[in-house]
């Protein structure tokens, strides 16, 4: 077992003259819920894409599940799950077809797929909707389904890029229950968000401002360090410099 499931050392990504991610360094431990916080445009998505093999870093070092993010991208892809801001499911396919498809491209066996599908629809209470098109589902359900699909192949780690955008607080709360459940079953969670209240649900967080990590630690510890009441205040203090 590797204790550090994600490592980053001076990881940098430049687009032309613009430095989107500026020498970030941190580790994520197995089974952790690691929050990656920051304002819009702080470089969270760019960072996540480098770990998922969607972008090449400009410089620095990094590893996911013990595999190098420069040279072992294809191997990494088998070990991770990824959910983007758009809860990307196919709207013109049914719930069951979406599940089958995503399980299929991760190479699951047919009988495992059927088993997983039934288990999933049961758990999410989507049994009656199995043959309904995604376009007929409310946003909250799509979001939960997108998350469940992202971990359908039991990855070591799942990257969630702003998974709670655009949904109401109750649905967000329910969604975090799902995340916690997954974390208990051993999946490491790497989640970006700009909702500071969600930071409280994370084991550890890093705070990103303009491409740099300005703070890193347990939420409670950060609050003490900066001598404030809430994570929101930590963020405001950092953002204003």
């Amino acid at each position, binding site marked *: 077992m590797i204790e550090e499931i994600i490592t980053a050392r001076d990881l940098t990504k430049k687009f032309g003259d613009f430095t989107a991610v500026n020498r970030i360094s941190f580790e994520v431990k197995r089974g952790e819920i690691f929050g990656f916080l920051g304002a819009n445009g702080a470089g969270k998505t760019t960072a996540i894409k480098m770990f998922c093999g969607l972008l090449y870093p400009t410089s620095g070092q990094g590893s996911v599940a013990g595999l190098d993010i420069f040279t072992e991208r294809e191997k990494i892809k088998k070990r991770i799950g*990824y959910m983007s801001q758009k809860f990307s499911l196919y709207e013109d*396919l049914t719930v069951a077809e979406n599940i089958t498809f*995503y399980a299929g491209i991760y190479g699951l066996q047919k009988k495992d797929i059927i088993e997983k599908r039934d288990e999933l629809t049961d758990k999410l209470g989507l049994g009656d909707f199995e043959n309904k098109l995604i376009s007929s589902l409310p946003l909250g359900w799509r979001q939960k389904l997108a998350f469940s699909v992202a971990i359908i192949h039991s990855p070591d780690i799942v990257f969630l890029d702003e998974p709670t955008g655009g949904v109401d607080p109750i649905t967000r709360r329910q969604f975090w229950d799902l995340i916690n459940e997954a974390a208990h079953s051993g999946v490491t969670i790497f989640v970006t968000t700009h909702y500071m209240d969600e930071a409280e649900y994370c084991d550890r967080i890093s705070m990103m401002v303009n491409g740099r990590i300005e703070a890193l630690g347990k939420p409670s510890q950060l609050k003490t360090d900066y001598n404030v009441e809430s994570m929101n205040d930590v963020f405001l203090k950092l953002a204003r410099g």
Partner: protein
Amino acid sequence: MKRFYAFVKKEFYHILRDYRTMIILFGMPIAQIMLFGFAITNEIKDAHIAILDPSKDYTTSRLNEKLLSSGYFILDKYLNKPEEIEPVFQEGRVKVVLIYDEDFSQNMLKYNQASIQIIADATDPNTANTLINYVTSIFQDFVLSQDPLPKSVVRIIPEIRFRYNQNLKGVFLFVPGLITIILMLVTAMMTSISITKEKEMGTMEILLASPMKPIQIIIAKVIPYIFLSFSISIIVLILGYFVFEVPVIGSLTLLLLEFLLFIIVALALGILISTISETQQVALMLSLLGLMLPTIILSGFIFPLENMPKILQWISYIIPARWFIVILKNIMLKGSGIELIWKETLILAGFAIFFIVVSLQKFKIRLS
């Protein structure tokens, strides 16, 4: 392979579920071939003609009779003086006015020469041209059937035969043209839109973060469109054959292989378009303006390339459809084998390789 299969299956769901697009994709070519075959014809029947005949003698009345019994013309009215010509055209019904010399018969006997002026309404130049051709050939026919024959110095009697398309049926050209457009439309436009859709919906990122390799994703996405465009063009081929007797004289295998080659060119173009467009609308506009228009206009399908300005002819060299139509016409109508179309085939293959390399390059750049 299992992953690949799951992907292709999903792609077929997308296509089959979008029944509106399916209706357009299958309905449009069928409607077009029927239109081109039945409704659009270059032959003109019952054109209105007005005649100004000051001599009113035996010869002119025989000529008129011959003209009017040809089936191409019906008499609108006899005119009495030249001033009536303009108003008659203005009314718009009359397409041709015929003006005989005075003393037509006598001139013919005395000088062995008599003249007729033929004026045509050229607001529609193609019609005017065709009608003039009808009139002159009827007159020539008349002259040759004179007894005794006029004593001209040399007599050349052309006997015309239209090879490969005896009856000059327009549909002979439209079937190859339509197949070209369908292959271009369905493969290039539909693939570019469907790949861009994945980008727009954000699903492309998920796919790229999965163990599927980019090249697998692309191939899996285009396979259904290869099937689709192949089957539609075969439907057009069959319709052309059974309804309009458009033949496939050459090798069917060669024809289908050439289909495949052109589909690969179109696919590469579609992928290229999808790499440079972020939204489906952009992909659609690029395909329409960048591919469809040149394919229709500069391929020689509707407008003869020989009559175009040099610069447009040069541009037409880089239109894959231009070469493909030549290949189709040669195989289908002339029965040519590969030895006569290897040059065009090689050019298409060149296009295919070039566009594939460029689009893969673009795809890679987008990833890094």
